[in-house]
């Protein structure tokens, strides 16, 4: 499951070593520039800091509502999104909150024209303000944007996979070549609609990439009670589509597998499943943090948190020579629970971006009560 490394082949014959080195050189992430890799590292920090800061804000009493942490799963979001085109669609769910502002983030975090949401909009949503993309009509991750090509999520797990299929079906009919990358947990693969949607997408070779964030726990139920096969990606076989398995802690392995799946989809060869192995570091939501320390053993939790995606990425960047000297050890956010990480553990521009977004959210208005009765049906001339 882990990425191959050249050094791991030391005991093999020189032929095998050459072959492996050749494969390694062809991996999509090897084409990334140093600037790309450093931006990826920065995005991991941004995703982590979003989580860290929301926990702090809640503890400080400036935020209410349940938080669904993506802590320890950030490499999946960053790795899956980084290689997409602005015209591609995505479909995140509750544990993917950073996906909304990471989409097309490489076009510039503050670039108003990028095909993703600004952190301000996402924070306005978290704070239940009228400036949220959904005007605070549904909670947490239940936002989206047709204009910026983000499918609006719901609480119905796997329920947006058929929507993703419909989006790219329409795109194809319009002559487009967009791919839709959907994010789901391993638990959602037990839903009937998961089968219906992937089956349909496979029949019509629709460019839907279904990422399964296998974090081992569906709320309080372990993956062994949800999925009967060793890998969730094994489900792909029944549809005659590729099932990739990625190391969800390694942003570059996620990037490689997703880029292969995206290339497959964009070429017209059809959908695929990319399982990213990871571990849910905390509770299902923050309300579940204490119980999640009881229904899971300390050993399992320690093992699951051991390979922090920021640390894994840092090691790779050191190997690449991107981080040297002091920069190799600066901003040690990894391995720290969100409740204990400090602002100093993060690059200042990350903290600053989040500060601005929170100020925007705090100063925004709540919706008028009467808006609760609007937009049940289309209002002629009444669009926002």
């Amino acid at each position, binding site marked *: 499951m882990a990425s191959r490394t050249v050094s791991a082949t030391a005991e093999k014959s020189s032929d095998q070593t050459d072959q492996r080195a050749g494969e390694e050189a062809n991996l999509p992430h090897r084409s990334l520039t140093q600037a790309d890799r450093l931006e990826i590292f920065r995005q991991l920090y941004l995703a982590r800091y979003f989580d860290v800061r929301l926990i702090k804000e809640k503890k400080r009493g400036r935020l209410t509502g349940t938080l669904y942490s993506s802590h320890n799963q950030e490499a999946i979001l960053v790795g899956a999104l980084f290689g997409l085109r602005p015209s591609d669609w995505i479909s995140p769910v509750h544990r993917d909150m950073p996906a909304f502002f990471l989409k097309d983030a490489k076009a510039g975090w503050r670039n108003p024209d990028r095909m993703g949401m600004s952190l301000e909009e996402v924070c306005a949503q978290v704070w239940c303000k009228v400036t949220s993309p959904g005007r605070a*009509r549904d909670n947490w991750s239940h936002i989206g944007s047709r204009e910026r090509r983000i499918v609006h999520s719901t609480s119905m797990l796997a329920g947006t996979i058929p929507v993703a*299929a*419909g989006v790219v*079906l329409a795109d194809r009919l319009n002559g487009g070549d967009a791919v839709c990358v959907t994010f789901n947990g391993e638990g959602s693969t037990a839903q009937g609609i998961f089968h219906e*949607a992937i089956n*349909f997408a496979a029949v019509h070779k629709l460019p839907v990439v279904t990422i399964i964030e296998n974090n081992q726990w569906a709320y309080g139920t372990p993956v062994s009670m949800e999925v009967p096969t060793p890998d969730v990606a094994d489900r792909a076989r029944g549809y005659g589509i590729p099932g990739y398995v990625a190391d969800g802690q390694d942003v570059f392995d996620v990037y490689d597998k997703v880029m292969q799946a995206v290339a497959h989809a964009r070429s017209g060869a059809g959908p695929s499943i990319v399982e990213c192995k990871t571990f849910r570091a905390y509770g299902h939501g923050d309300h579940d943090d204490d119980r999640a320390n009881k229904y899971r053993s300390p050993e399992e939790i320690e093992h699951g948190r051991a390979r922090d995606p920021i640390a894994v990425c840092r090691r790779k960047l050191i190997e690449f020579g991107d981080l040297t000297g002091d920069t190799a050890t600066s901003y040690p956010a990894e391995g720290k629970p969100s409740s204990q990480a400090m602002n100093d553990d993060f690059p200042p521009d990350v903290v600053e971006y989040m500060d601005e977004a929170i100020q925007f959210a705090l100063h925004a208005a709540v919706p008028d009560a009467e808006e609760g009765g*609007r937009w049940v049906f*289309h209002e002629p001339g009444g669009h926002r």
Partner: protein
Amino acid sequence: MSAVAVPVKKNYLTALREAIDEEMGRNNDLLCLGEDIGILGGAFGVTEGLQAKYGAHRVMDMPISEGAIIGTSVGAALNGKTVMAEMQFIDFISCGFDQIVNTLATYHYRTAGEVSMPIVVRGPAGAYSGGALYHSQMNEAWFCNAPGLKVVCPSTPADAKGLLKAALRDPNPVIFYEIKELYRKKQIEEEIPENHIVPLGKAVIRRPGKDVTLVSYGQTVYHCVAAADALAEQGISAEVIDLRSLVPLDEETVFLSLGKTNRVVVVNEAPMTCGFAGELLARISEKAFHLLDAPPQRVTRLDTPVPWAKPMELYVLPSVEKIVAAAMRTVRF
């Protein structure tokens, strides 16, 4: 050479096909998704010939996956398409229930008007045909209880065409109940003008009267008309209202009628408890209580499934006799 147009009477099914055909002709973004609708032309033939005319990319044969049919329709609409989604029988709509009530119905609301969902989910409905439990249902109440959906049920060929065309032009999702017993019924064939549109939310008076109002929709409109005939023999003049749309509901036509008759019987095929008849009686009681001279009545299916054997089927369903008896209760109160 000049030809004199001979008026052609059309059945309910042909009217539906013409509606879809005409709308596909004028709206290149209209797609049809459903089971067996392309190669076969639909289990009942509503979409016959449309795949040959518009291509398999616009009339798509879908796997037996109602959830995926609705979900795919939603995605296509999110990306600019209009969709007609056929349920092979409206009974099977329950397999797509979650996608309808949680994804489709709420889309416009949860996006604060950003995204509209021009989707018509249509399919054959109704009993009296020996279809038994799973080919007889009228489950419209489920969807009337899901804000964001319009719910429509035509009883004549002209309305079938006009309402379907209006539904296919509506920016909101519409659940469209077709009465399969009426699909090929000779007696109700009628001439229908080209581009005939019937706006959603407008009821129609099928039979004027002054003593009691019979309100219904779909197949039981004909039971009400027959009941009105029977009542007329006893000197009672019944007015028959065909609602045509349940959401939005034309309360005004009902209340205006009650202003004349002061008595009302609501008739529908669905089970009684929490059915649409109950909803209409509640609104009448709240808003038009002062117009009533007698307790409002309803005639519905018993609170049972629809059984197969004919005597049992008729036993549980509304009948002309049951409607006449209910009307008499209001008149003799």
